[in-house]
């Protein structure tokens, strides 16, 4: 098996709003020697895993993506978006573990080859931890992120439910270990796995600043200078929520990073791949202050959301 080749499922948000999650990841994986095989004809995963026992039609979309990965000759697929990861991982478990529903779905998709959950669905953090290892990764770091006190924020879908968790549900450490490998100082805080409000930004947007307040203030009290994220919806809710807190409560503001941006910087890649123009909380100013990037403006530095 070619261990450095991985199927890649991007998902809708990464190809539009969250280029600042995807672009630094792709550049970093290339620098680390991986060959990513983006799934042809991938489709939306449905964003949320269907929780109703009689609702199989919403499993078709995630399962089709897994079939595509298999058709391209891959037995592993890597995902960056936490929502897509959760939807595909849970759908895969259903296909593996529930013979009756699997048969119904396979019969419904009679134009597709039979699928029984063979593909392993992985988050990029799992690949970095299990394929490369923290020690090896730390040796590849060209620009250690020394002096950066960063709080890892896991959110919900990397860890819950238990059967799809990428790490210990109650006491995860994968992001702390990742940050330490890059030379940063991880700051732990109790709200690191507390929900950001998720899709309630559509139904009850007025509740979102409250969710953001609990998370951001807690991280700040423990000395975090920035928050590290994996999920584009956490980014949106904490970013928009933060804007309200800055405006109405005098919250000092906290830069929000995707973990992939920090990876690219630590590997010594051009900061332009990080697409900081799409970030909340002005992480570029913070990184310049810390001497991680030079004060020269990057070409994309227009229309920032800070």
């Amino acid at each position: 098996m070619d261990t450095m080749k991985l199927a890649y499922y991007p998902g809708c948000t990464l190809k539009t709003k969250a280029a600042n999650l995807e672009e630094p990841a792709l550049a970093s994986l290339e620098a680390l020697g991986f060959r990513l095989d983006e799934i042809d004809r991938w489709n939306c995963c449905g964003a949320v895993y269907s929780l109703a026992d009689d609702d199989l039609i919403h499993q078709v979309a995630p399962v089709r993506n897994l079939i595509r990965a298999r058709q391209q000759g891959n037995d592993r697929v890597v995902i960056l978006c936490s929502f897509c990861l959760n939807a595909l991982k849970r759908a895969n478990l259903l296909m593996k573990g529930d013979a009756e529903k699997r048969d119904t779905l396979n019969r419904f998709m009679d134009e597709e080859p039979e699928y029984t959950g063979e593909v392993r669905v992985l988050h990029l953090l799992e690949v970095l931890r299990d394929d490369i290892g923290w020690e090896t990764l730390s040796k590849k770091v060209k620009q250690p992120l020394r002096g950066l006190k960063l709080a890892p924020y896991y959110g919900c879908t990397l860890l819950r439910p238990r059967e799809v968790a990428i790490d210990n549900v109650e006491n995860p450490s994968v992001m702390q270990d990742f940050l330490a490998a890059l030379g940063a100082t991880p700051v732990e805080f109790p709200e690191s796995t507390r929900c950001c409000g998720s899709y309630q930004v559509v139904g009850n947007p007025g509740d979102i600043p409250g969710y953001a307040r609990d998370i951001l203030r807690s991280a700040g009290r423990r000395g975090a200078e920035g928050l590290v994220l994996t999920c584009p919806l956490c980014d949106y809710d904490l970013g928009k929520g933060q804007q309200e807190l800055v405006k109405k409560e005098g919250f000092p503001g906290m830069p929000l990073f995707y973990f992939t941006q920090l990876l690219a910087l630590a590997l010594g890649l051009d900061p332009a791949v990080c697409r900081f123009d799409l970030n909340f909380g002005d992480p570029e100013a913070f990184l310049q202050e810390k001497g991680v990037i030079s004060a020269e403006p990057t070409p994309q530095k227009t229309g920032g959301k800070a």
Partner: protein
Amino acid sequence: MDGEFVNKIKELSGENPQLCYQCGMCSGNCPAASHMDFSPRQVIELARLGLHEELVSSKTVWVCASCMACMVDCPRGFDLSKLMEAIRLLALRKRADHVKPEDVPVEERADLPQIAMVGGLRKFTG
């Protein structure tokens, strides 16, 4: 007591609310509890008592974000996120949309990440 309602939510959720012994771990863990009228623990009690009207008119299932903080620590292994979904679906499948897509302001529609729009409309429309 609406026995048909009890059976329907058991069927849709695949969960048995009789498992619950009302310890309240779910309510203690829920980050949305302060926005709810009935607490997560109360939702289970109302559901198994078949109090249909109280549940479908309550705010609780509509402010739940399916974050699953309730279920990972449930000592009875009960998946409350599935019960919340079943109660939502009983309303949504009768075309009683909770959010109208056209009511989401145009500028927000352009701004929201796709996972928010797709996820939100999956949870709030039938």
